């Protein structure tokens, strides 16, 4: 087949406009960054849609973005703080938990939305072409709005407890980016798997729960023995959450060893995720 195809290729080669070639999927995967860029408006509209519909037909709307971490923070403070006496590294429990819940809640919901996005958009996927990568990307980006809203609540808490941010807060965007990339990387894997195996949908809540306990949300990372820190850092959210606590509350030291391991892992997950997702993309319309 390919031999005959090669000889017939260039009837259009002399033409001026770019020629789009549609052929069977090749064995390796290309990362369509250029194509994704040309579809940036669609990406924008998808993010916009996700945000628009999130709180439609809810009574208090975006207040949920504040209420969820706030309530969780209160429960954690009572159970883990007051009852279990877990150390908070000298921070008020409210600050200690909320600063961890900020990235964690973003991550958990972004991961969930990204995982379901292929299945939820299967009608669109089977009817029109666009780089499928835009779907999990939009899901992950849309979560940032909730993050922004709940961050405002954190500012209120900071004022209430009279905590002055240090220069470390300049690092916050970097840690946020790490959280976004983690959610995207894992989301790519799971959304592709979910398109083929719907079991993923049922596994996800457990995964998120386990993951939370494997991350320093309810306890400080300092409880983990130093010699195991690097291993602990293989969970990228450990680096993210420690980073958030450090840059927001200014306590303790920058999460060095953990962070290096986290960044390395995220890069691996992300590259693998893109490759796997792109492979899945070639058949998703037939399978989903």
């Amino acid at each position, binding site marked *: *087949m390919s031999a*005959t*195809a090669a000889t*017939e*290729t260039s*009837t*259009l080669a002399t*033409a001026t*406009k*770019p*020629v*789009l*070639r*549609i*052929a*069977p*999927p090749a064995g390796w995967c290309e990362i369509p960054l250029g194509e994704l860029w040309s579809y940036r*408006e*669609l990406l*924008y*509209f*998808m993010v*916009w*849609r996700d945000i*628009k*519909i999130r709180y*439609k*037909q809810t009574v208090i709307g975006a207040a949920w973005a504040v209420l969820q971490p706030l309530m969780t923070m209160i429960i954690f403070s009572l159970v883990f703080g007051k009852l279990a006496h877990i150390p908070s590294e000298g921070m008020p429990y409210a600050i200690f938990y909320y600063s961890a819940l900020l990235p964690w809640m973003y991550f958990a919901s972004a991961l969930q939305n990204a995982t379901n996005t292929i299945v939820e958009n299967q*009608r*669109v*996927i*089977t*009817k*029109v*072409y*666009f780089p499928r990568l835009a779907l999990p990307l939009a899901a992950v980006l849309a979560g940032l709005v909730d993050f922004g809203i709940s961050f405002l609540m954190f500012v209120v808490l900071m004022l209430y407890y009279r905590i002055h941010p240090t220069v470390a807060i300049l690092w916050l965007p970097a840690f946020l980016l790490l959280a976004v990339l983690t959610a995207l990387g894992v989301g790519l894997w799971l959304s592709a798997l979910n*398109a*083929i*195996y*719907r*079991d993923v949908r049922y596994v996800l809540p457990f995964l998120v729960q386990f993951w939370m306990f494997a991350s320093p949300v309810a306890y400080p990372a300092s409880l983990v023995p130093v010699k195991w820190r690097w291993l602990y850092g293989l969970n990228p959210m450990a680096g993210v959450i420690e980073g958030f606590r450090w840059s927001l509350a200014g306590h303790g030291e920058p999460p060095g060893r953990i962070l290096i391991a986290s960044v390395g892992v995220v890069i691996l997950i992300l590259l693998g995720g893109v490759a796997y997702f792109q492979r899945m993309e*070639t*058949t998703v*319309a*037939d*399978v*989903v």
Partner: protein
Amino acid sequence: MIHVAGLGKRYRVGERERYFALRDVLSRAITAPFQRSERREPDYLWAIRDVSFDIREGEVVGLIGRNGSGKTTLLKLLSRITRPTTGFAEIQGRVGSLLEVGTGFHPELTGRENIYLSGAVLGMNKRDIDRKFDEIVAFAEVARFLDTPLKHFSTGMQMRLAFAVAAHLEPEILLVDEVLAVGDLEFQKKCLGKMQEVSKSGRTIVFVSHQMNQIRRLCERVMWINAGQIRQSGPTGEIIAAYEAASLQQDSHESLQQACFSRWSLGDGSNLLRDGLSEVSLHFYLQLSAAVRQGHFGIAIIDNDNLVLIGWGFDNLDLGQGAQELVLRIPALPLRPGAYTLMCSLFDGGNNLTGGELVEQWHAVPPLIVDTPPLSHPQDRWAGVLNIPADLQVCPSTVTAGDVSGQE
């Protein structure tokens, strides 16, 4: 410009529209861990196989074929929704595809929001949509409901809005699946008009439809897809005729009826009678799933006022199973210009008076069109139903008045 060579798409039967549960994979691994090597040959289905064609810039091409023949798969391949198994396609120009009305609509969003969303999904950028917004709203006739969530729209309104967005796509190449069958008749006409407008603006269009009149109005060229392959390709009229003849044949084979008239024509193959004064032959084609014995064929010519102008009956017909042609020869058919219905009936085992069974009755389509110069009275009131020339001579009388008086 589209160049397609050897394009094929293979599905594993059962794979399409199905997902796996991890359980299946695991249980297979447990129950048959050593059978992986002797992999069972899966059932494959070629939805499209070895299809090659070229479409020039600005051409409007229709795709016809029965359900499941692969038309939609071909569009999906060209619009990159799914990837081919073999061969390739080269496309030059921005492609927009319209495989479904309302792609990307979300029920919770308002009409206005959905216009932007659907537009973006179909490949428009925000500036395009801004520019076309008023036009889209006017076309869809939903101006009053722009800020109402889509879920409160009636189905008809949703369809109108969806088509309006899609109709204002302006890609260089437009791939359209059967989507013009939406809304009421009025709106369908509007849609078809819009499509004609688009096709005249020099865009390349590939258009799938089951409605041959739409194909006739829009397309210069037609490709007839059958079982995943191009069966015939060429000028619209020719291919549609072949396709219709084949599908009529197929339909009558499938029908339980004993007999079925498929078509009729005059001796020259048309339904247009230009000379009513010479011999006229009417050819009737029918399919018989069982033989007719001692049959009766009745034919009547009926005008617009349902007046039977003339009818004939033929008894004692023996018709074998299969395709049959009945040729009716008439020395002259001097009818006034106009359209006439031919009503045919076929009885088995006698005629309607001797206890025969009616096995087929057919108001022949198309009607018989008589296009001869009118020969009878110029006033309709006195023109009648026949169209026979008459000659009037004025003869100087050899009989004198005197003779007349002489008779007295």
